[in-house]
């Protein structure tokens, strides 16, 4: 294949997709849903219902200033994607030894489209419309050896379906 797919850290099959013990890049991005499962923390406008990610204090649609915390759905469909093929400059702080990574927007139940890294299997080519689910995945390691995780989405397969 002319432009090979990126290999991206893939959580071990069957791993529980709770927030890992490692440091998460920005804990303000997360909250628990009604079932106590960690998910992305959005906000919802009390006036017009617009949903944002991350949470923000005012509404970009109606300019309202009353927003409530809103846990985002953990599943959605891939709306578009690309693959980052060169190592970004600072403020990117991923590994010096660069591996390409995929990025996309995932439509979460028509509430909001969230931009995220995509956690792909080796040689997996993402497709618009793929069913995706939220995972937490390591993306770098600090100089003192702490693994830093971020949020990502991976495709739902028969193998991992129901395990998140």
């Amino acid at each position, binding site marked *: 294949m*002319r*432009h090979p797919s990126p290999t991206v850290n893939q959580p071990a099959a069957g791993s529980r997709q709770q927030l890992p013990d490692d440091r998460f*890049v*920005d804990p*303000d*991005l997360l909250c628990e849903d009604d079932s106590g499962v960690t998910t992305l923390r*959005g906000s919802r406008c009390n006036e017009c219902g*617009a949903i*944002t*990610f*991350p949470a923000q204090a005012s509404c*970009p*649609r109606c300019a309202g200033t009353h927003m409530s915390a809103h846990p985002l759905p953990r599943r959605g469909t891939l*709306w*578009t*994607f*690309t*693959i*980052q*093929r*060169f190592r*970004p*400059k*600072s*403020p*990117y*702080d*991923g590994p010096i030894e660069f591996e390409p*990574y995929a*990025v*996309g*927007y995932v*439509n979460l139940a*028509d*509430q*909001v*489209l*969230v*931009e995220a*890294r995509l956690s792909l299997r080796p040689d997996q080519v993402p497709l*618009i419309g793929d069913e995706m689910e939220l995972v937490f995945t390591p*993306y*770098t390691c600090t100089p003192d050896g702490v693994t830093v995780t*971020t949020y990502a989405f991976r495709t739902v397969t028969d193998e991992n379906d129901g395990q998140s």
Partner: protein
Amino acid sequence: MSVAIVGIGMHRFGRTPGMSGRQQAVVATRDALADAGVDWKDVQFAVGGSASGGFADTLVNELGLTGTAFINVSNGCATGASALMVAASMIEAEKADLCVAVGFDKHEPGAFNADPESVGLGAWYGSTGLMLTTQFFGMKIQRYLHDHDLPVSLLAKVSAKAFRNGALNPNAWRRTPLSEHDIAEAPMVSDPLTKYMFCSPGEGAVALVMASGKRAAAMQSNPVMLRSVVQRTRRYGSFEVFSPWLAPERADSPTVEAAGACFEDAGIGPADVDVAQIQDTEAGAEIMHMSETGFCAAGEQEELIMLGHTEIGGPLPINTDGGCIANGEPIGASGLRQIYENVVQLRGQAGARQVPGNPRVAFSHVYGAPGLSACTLLTR
């Protein structure tokens, strides 16, 4: 609107080692003044911008400390158009009748690395590797090709045209034609866009001398007239660069609104345009912006491009100087480069890249981060 462009000047785009962005701006400004046949001391108002080349108003140290008012503007890749708009507004308001608008830059090689906090985003957005304009353009055209059933091969065709036109432009950075095959097979940067489908951050400077219609008539027999200039920022629901999230419903891009208002203000329609410069940060942007500016419906680009409509000599020549792809992107200068090229074309001075048939109406369009657009119409 009764505003004319009576002088144009440029420092060639690309890389000029040993010369700062400011120095290039001084060259461009002196060229524009000479082209207009005026002196810096005659200028009543100046406006300019640069993203990484320094403050425009400090150019007075070299141009002359005449006391003239000088405003700095900053609107990403739309900076030049904003400078033009401010100068035109001053003339329209009869606050000045001879103005300079200048844009310049000098960027380090490689993709831009924007600061998330400067656009109101958390540091995580940059550190995890999401804050890249290149990713946005890859994702926007990926979805666009999918929605409108356009072939990915169109991207290489657009780039090949840019390099062909650049080869005819002595001021362009990239002056070697490249085949569609070489463009398509180049290293991928952000799928589906390869290295030769993107413009590169570069260097360069452009200046304009602008005058009221009355003053211009006393200076020149047939000046190029600015018919309208409109800038718009994004609406809720448009798909823009540096967006951690998007609304589920899509709204028109700011380009659609800016272009629509620009044509309406001028009383000119897209079908009247003889030559157009539209933002081609990458090849997909030219394709998308052809439709967003109103020159065709979404999905019609394939037929127009395959028929050669956008070539010099076609019914709607686009990016006749090679666009951003062949000229690079010095952020502050880019929008004014389009105006410079349109003035050259309307004057019939474009040499090997001259649009035939005495073009009379010229359109330009810029798109800048984090989601704004400006469009202009010139006539002669």
